[in-house]
């Protein structure tokens, strides 16, 4: 079999980034081996100048002395984790909604697709704003104050109510500290394309002979959906998942950069360094380590998953069913 150059390139780059993620503790050892952090401080916190590359920090430091190289290496772990978790959860939700409503059809399908369209009109940024506000309000009424931190919102949480909080309040507090409102919002408002694609596929497949045959043989609904319909409808979903891993990380990086959330070390470097991007005399080259490595990492990550999606599209979908894009 002939292997396309693009496939080879996609696999090579994916292997490279996976290797970096797995070998992160060897490439850039963390100070705390038990509980490794994606950020490492080399030097004093009150030192507000970015320092050029030296033997302690291979790619220099941003203001407050965060090591660029360390965050760059460990950022691959965070990006892979975030992208894979979000896009897999989103794909599962979308596929389930799309397939079940498509299979039963009728009024259920109209309602489900109507809800899908309603969600589609909500721009992600408005959704994130709304769910963050909702969580903040919720915690306010439970008696917890949410604080702003350096990068992103709602990071440190403490109980501020004067009376002793009730059991329920404590439970909500503990749950809230584990939730990333940004991730929740992103999951809630990204499943629609999957539902639509799967829905269209299932409705098309429902009328084919092999489905009718097993229906006549007395197969249960769940068996029909999961054994017969979904395996035939899943290939565009796989393509979309591959593309979404890159897209979700890009979206997260965007929101970290404008200061709405946290979690992407790559974008955090850009966030901390953004006042220094323009050097003295309007020169971009004076403080290049503040933005060149992180930008490069973000672009590379996006390209890898897009390339992978395109190649999966070619491999999985025969010519006529290939999804455009």
């Amino acid at each position, binding site marked *: 079999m002939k292997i396309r150059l693009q496939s080879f390139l996609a696999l090579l780059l994916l292997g490279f980034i996976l290797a970096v993620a797995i070998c992160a503790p060897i490439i850039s050892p963390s100070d705390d081996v038990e509980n490794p952090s994606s950020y490492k401080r080399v030097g004093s916190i009150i030192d507000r100048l970015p320092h050029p590359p030296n033997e302690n920090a291979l790619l220099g430091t941003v203001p407050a002395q965060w090591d660029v190289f360390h965050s760059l290496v460990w950022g691959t772990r965070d990006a892979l984790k975030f992208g894979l978790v979000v896009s897999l959860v989103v794909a599962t939700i979308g596929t389930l909604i799309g397939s079940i409503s498509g299979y039963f059809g009728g009024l259920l399908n109209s309602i489900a697709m*109507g*809800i899908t*369209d*309603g969600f*589609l*009109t*909500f*721009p*992600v*940024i*408005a959704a994130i*704003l*709304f769910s*963050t*506000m*909702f969580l*903040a*309000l*919720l915690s*306010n*009424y439970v008696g917890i104050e949410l604080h*702003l931190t350096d990068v992103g*919102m709602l990071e440190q949480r403490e109980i501020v109510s004067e009376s002793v909080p009730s059991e329920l309040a404590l439970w909500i507090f503990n749950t809230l500290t584990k939730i990333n409102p940004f991730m929740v919002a992103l999951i809630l408002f990204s499943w629609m394309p999957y539902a639509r694609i799967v829905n269209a596929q299932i409705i098309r497949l429902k009328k084919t002979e092999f489905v009718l045959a097993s229906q006549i043989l007395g197969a249960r609904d769940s068996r029909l959906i999961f054994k017969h319909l979904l395996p035939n409808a899943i290939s565009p979903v796989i393509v979309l998942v591959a593309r979404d891993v*890159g897209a979700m990380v*890009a*979206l997260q*990086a*965007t929101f970290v*950069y*404008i200061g*709405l959330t946290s979690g992407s070390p790559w974008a955090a470097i*850009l966030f901390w360094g953004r006042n220094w*991007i*323009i050097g003295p005399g*309007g020169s*971009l080259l004076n403080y290049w380590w503040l*933005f060149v490595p992180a*930008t490069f990492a*973000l*672009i590379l990550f*996006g*390209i890898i998953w*897009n*390339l992978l999606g*395109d190649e999966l599209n070619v491999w999985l979908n025969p010519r006529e069913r*290939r999804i*455009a*894009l």
Partner: protein
Amino acid sequence: MIATLLVVTATMYGALMLFPTGARIVLYMDGEQPLRTSEEWDAAADIILEKNDLEAPFLVQYFSWIQNLFKGNWGYSWMLGDNIFHALLRYAPATIELTIYSLLLLIPLGMLSGMMAGLRKNSLFDWVFRIFAFTATSVPLFIVVIIMLSIFYISLHWFPPGRIGISTDLFLKSGAFKTFTGLLTIDGLLNGRWDISLEAFRHLAIPVFALSLAHWATLSRVTRATVIDELGKEYIVSASAKGLPWRVVVWRHIFRNVLTPVLTNSALSATSLISGVYIVELICNFRGISNFIIFGLMETDIPAVIGFSIYSILSVLLIMFVLDLAQAITDPRIREEVMGR
């Protein structure tokens, strides 16, 4: 469309119903009383509680709130220091300007380049186009903006960020400049000050180009794939075989068949376009509706967040509606279906 809007607003209000009454008082304030001290605030809150029954069942409250929305009373934001509706009117023109110019740039460009690449499949142009479009889809939007700012603003000094320069801004506020539409590029011409229009265009250049680039890439890739798909169909062969000039085949036959899927696709990406508008605004310091994000999020300003959400949904629905209309105009099948009803 209206049903979607009703369902979404009902969901948002329903979410707020989960909280005690106090959380919803701000939604009914019109900002006409002075609200500087906590006593004044309490007095205003008492008046609202007297006038509106905030313990009423959901539907009753929801409809009284919707009535308020139609009256132009969208709640008072103490971060913006104004009624939300007035604030929206103040900031929306900048956002509308940015959105309209981006759409005007990206739809024709995306379709043309996609057509050209699809018709010359595997040519040099096609390869360059594919690599360029692929890269443009992979690079996050904010990085595109940073790169553009660093080249065109910092290095070349061509296109400054912000909405308008400081000296012009002072002139705009001096009263000598009449505001007709709020869109600076058009108002400048209407006032006979083409230099202000030119300056507004220079400030618009980076946001518009960055926003268009990201969405141009998806649009033109869809167009290219559809064109290649259409080229293999039999009606093209028969049209060529009966001796039609290639130009006619392309523009009469292929183009009109490509239009429908492409317009559907761009209607679907309207949501990401609107999200992109705010991101670009924030990074370029183009003071539009994105102000609501800054103020609304920092202090859980409920009316600001709700107003922002409604504005976003309205603009998405409007873009979808216009593109659907364009589809109905260009596609006889849809046109007849709509007329038939």
